[in-house]
């Protein structure tokens, strides 16, 4: 079997799947392991079609940039901040969906800790404009 997901991720997925708020979840490596139905209109595809994706891949595809069109450095990308610095972050930005459409959204990301020293992943909430 594929590596067992941490219980916190399993519970987060169930939480997200019952929300109308667009939400994505990564594991501790940043691998996108789930996004909910509400997030499909922002990501531009269904999770069933996209499947799990390494952080570098989905970050490159989304190409987050400022509203003026400049690429955002990792230290300003909420998901990267939650993963690398393990703190919450929020930013308004433009992304490109997997369908090739550019969208302006706000992203709130926060790290998931099962215990104080056990980082298990990250949740990103996508706020539509």
């Amino acid at each position: 079997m594929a590596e067992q997901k941490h219980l916190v991720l399993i519970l987060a997925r169930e939480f997200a799947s019952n929300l109308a708020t667009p939400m994505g979840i990564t594991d501790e490596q940043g691998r996108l392991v789930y996004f909910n139905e509400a997030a499909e209109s922002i990501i531009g595809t269904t999770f069933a079609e996209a499947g799990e994706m390494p952080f570098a891949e989905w970050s490159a595809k989304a190409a987050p940039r400022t509203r003026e069109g400049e690429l955002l450095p990792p230290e300003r990308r909420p998901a990267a901040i939650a993963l690398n610095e393990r703190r919450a972050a929020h930013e308004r930005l433009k992304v490109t969906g997997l369908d090739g459409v550019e969208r302006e959204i706000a992203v709130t990301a926060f790290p998931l800790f099962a215990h104080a020293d056990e980082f298990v992943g990250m949740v990103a909430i996508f706020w539509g404009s």
Partner: protein
Amino acid sequence: MQVTIWGCRGSLATPGRDTVRYGGNTSCLEVELANGSVFVLDAGTGIRELGVKLERRNVRRIQLLLTHLHLDHVEGLRFFGPLWDEQVEIDIWGPPSPVVSLRDRIARAFSPPLFPIEIADVPARLNFNDVPREQWILDGATLRAETIVHPGPTVGYRIESGDRTLAYLPDHEPALTGTIGERSLDWISGASLAARADLLVHDAQFSEEEYSHRVGWGHSSSADAIAYSKAVGADRIVLFHHDPNHDDVWLDESEQLAQLLAGSNGVVPTLAREGMVLAP
């Protein structure tokens, strides 16, 4: 590996003439390895009688694996005979809490007004250990613990010895995170613990109808337990943690229904009974 069930009742000890065949003691299993090592799984009221047996055998070293600290899983500990013998050493393993140590959480049960003797005054040598995140080797067995779906910090256990594997998930509601049969294994709570186990001891407290009114309480229906055993590919499932309201007659019928649910080409589910001895 030999597994003996000393208590399989859930939630509350239920002695009485209506529960004599399945038993009224709360959760406790004894796992004895070929090398003589003794593992005790949970400290429900069934552990008292197990303690009598272990004292007779003069067992001096015991591994006690707690899945969680709900009362029905620890209420027998204070009456576990080896605890009161200064020649005995007991390693107590349990789920880590983000807030309070395992020792301090257990100590609550050993303090007034619940109990007259403090845990510091227990004669046996007690070693408290949070379960490791990785598998570990203990007295001839390879163990793994993982947090599973149940309210509060709760783990299930996988014990491997020789070529035999026991998975113990007595309080578990995997269906809370989605229909079991529709998920890949990596997204099913505790699946890596139970995968291809020779013997799976799993929560089946409720009937389907009861479960529909108790979603989120942390327990499974028999149907979900059977679906779980199929999903993880367990060779055998023993349905565990019987509801206090279920008497022997109810449980007889439940077992027949479970076997019908399992179908003819799957494993044949068995209901746990106090005194049952299993060889995984």
